[in-house]
């Protein structure tokens, strides 16, 4: 068999692609890679199309054994990966031989790391995606996180070239303090001038209260003019403010509808940065126009579309 055998799934490793589309109307969450940037670069390095399933390792502690020769790239959080005990670099390709063990410690920078393999993992396709939705228990490998003994088949493709490295200027950083851009919308009118000033002038702390569904931020309370609204659809990056007054940013495994007032939404590329924030990290919100937000999102996806062209 070509591929990996999971020696240790770590805290939470799962198969993810860019996510599940078009089924939110019957209640299926989008799911997909928490950080599409690192995910995208990993696939790019091994010569895969952007939306190719990869392993997402959350926080670390995982290890995998190669059952065949294969070409991989590791991108995202720095979990000090090793191959047979020797350090290996992120943001570049590596050729593994049969029997090689790659192991991950706990992340000292970022939260999510991605392993892409040339040709992609041959895992089950469910409801239009390879992504695992852990909350719903569907997709990926039996809808669950990876565990010891799991087999992850690959095609055994060769590297696109001997060794491919991401240019330094493209390598993202995962600082402890970030500013995320927000497009106002939804119920912004339910937050008066004072509440909006508080929201945009405060620094919030991510205390680690969060998962693939969303991150709760702690700090200055922002009180909407009403505590609840009629349940309505929720998009990626939506910043909802329940009655406790602290913002919750909804991410890949968010619920599809909900009834809390929302200030607006963080743009996709900044949701990827937020996903990588470690517990204790600081967040500031910055308002941007729809035009500016769309320009940023377009720039991100154009890069990967061009690689595929």
């Amino acid at each position: 068999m070509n591929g990996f055998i999971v020696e240790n799934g770590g805290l939470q490793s799962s198969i993810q692609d860019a996510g599940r589309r078009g089924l939110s109307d019957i209640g299926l969450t989008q799911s997909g890679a928490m950080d599409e940037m690192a995910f995208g670069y990993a696939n790019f390095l091994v010569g895969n199309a952007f939306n190719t399933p990869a392993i997402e390792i959350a926080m670390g502690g995982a290890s995998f054994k190669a059952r065949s020769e294969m070409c991989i790239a590791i991108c995202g959080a720095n979990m000090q990966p090793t191959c047979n005990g020797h350090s290996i670099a992120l943001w570049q390709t590596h050729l593994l031989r049969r029997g090689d063990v790659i192991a991950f410690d706990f992340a000292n920078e970022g939260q999510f790391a991605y392993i892409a393999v040339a040709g992609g993992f041959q895992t089950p396709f469910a409801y239009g995606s390879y992504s695992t939705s852990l909350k719903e228990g569907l997709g990926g490998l039996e809808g669950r996180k990876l565990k010891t003994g799991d087999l992850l088949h690959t095609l055994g493709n060769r590297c696109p070239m001997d060794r491919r490295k991401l240019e330094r200027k493209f390598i993202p950083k995962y600082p402890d303090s970030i500013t995320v851009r927000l497009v106002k919308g939804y119920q912004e009118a339910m937050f008066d001038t004072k509440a909006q000033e508080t929201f945009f002038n405060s620094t919030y702390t991510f205390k680690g209260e969060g998962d693939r569904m969303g991150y709760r931020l702690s700090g200055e309370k922002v009180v909407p003019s009403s505590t609840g609204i009629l349940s309505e659809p929720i998009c990626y990056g939506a910043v909802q403010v329940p009655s406790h007054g602290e913002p919750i940013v909804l991410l890949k495994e968010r619920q599809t509808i909900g009834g809390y007032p929302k200030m607006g939404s963080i743009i996709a590329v900044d949701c990827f940065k937020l996903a990588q924030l470690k517990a204790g990290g600081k967040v500031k919100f910055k308002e941007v126009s729809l035009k500016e937000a769309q320009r940023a999102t377009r720039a991100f996806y154009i890069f990967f579309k061009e690689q595929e062209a």
Partner: protein
Amino acid sequence: MSRRYAIASESSVIVYFGTSIDPVISQEVQKAYHALKAKAQESFYEIIPSYASLMVSYDVMRFSFDAVCEIIENSIHQAESIAVSEPKIITIPVYYGREVGLDLELLAQEKNLSAEEIIALHVNEVYTVYAIGFAPGFAYLGEIDARLATSRLASPRKAVPKGSVSIADRQTAVYPTQSPGGWKVLGRTPTAMFDASYDGLSLLHVGDHVRYQSISKEEFLSLGGEL
């Protein structure tokens, strides 16, 4: 009817048709939803209806906010000239036995009604699917008889069994899989709410009409129900 278009995110538009749970408003949402699904499903990432709103998520490489609003508005106008098709009526068999109707007793005490009276009120109504969410195939049906209107459990269950037929406020729903939840459980259905073999995956879709039908324990078991 006036509609309000709002930004949800850099790649999502939300349209508000109203601000309350109202069959007339819901029908407007349903018409727009079905028109968009039929015409523009391939163009958009998501078309999600709820009680009084509809959200469309789009590819910013292909569309501007204004262009999406225009497509939605055109679809709604076209839908208005088309006669509303009769909604699908789906019958869901329910076993209202005490061993599966976990809160039947509690509700009977709360409402000063017998279990039989509660069941009669619950099966007597034809419900409309207002929204789907919370979990795959979890359909919010309304409205239940005012005499059954009830609050959620003070302390939610960690695991509500799969197929549990439940109520909260003026709504009723079936739990498609075992999950945590605080709705009061009246019975259990052997029918799957979400299944890969279903055309459209979910038994119910927004706008469908639903009737519950009381069945015996024997029927429940013979239909594959599990106690």
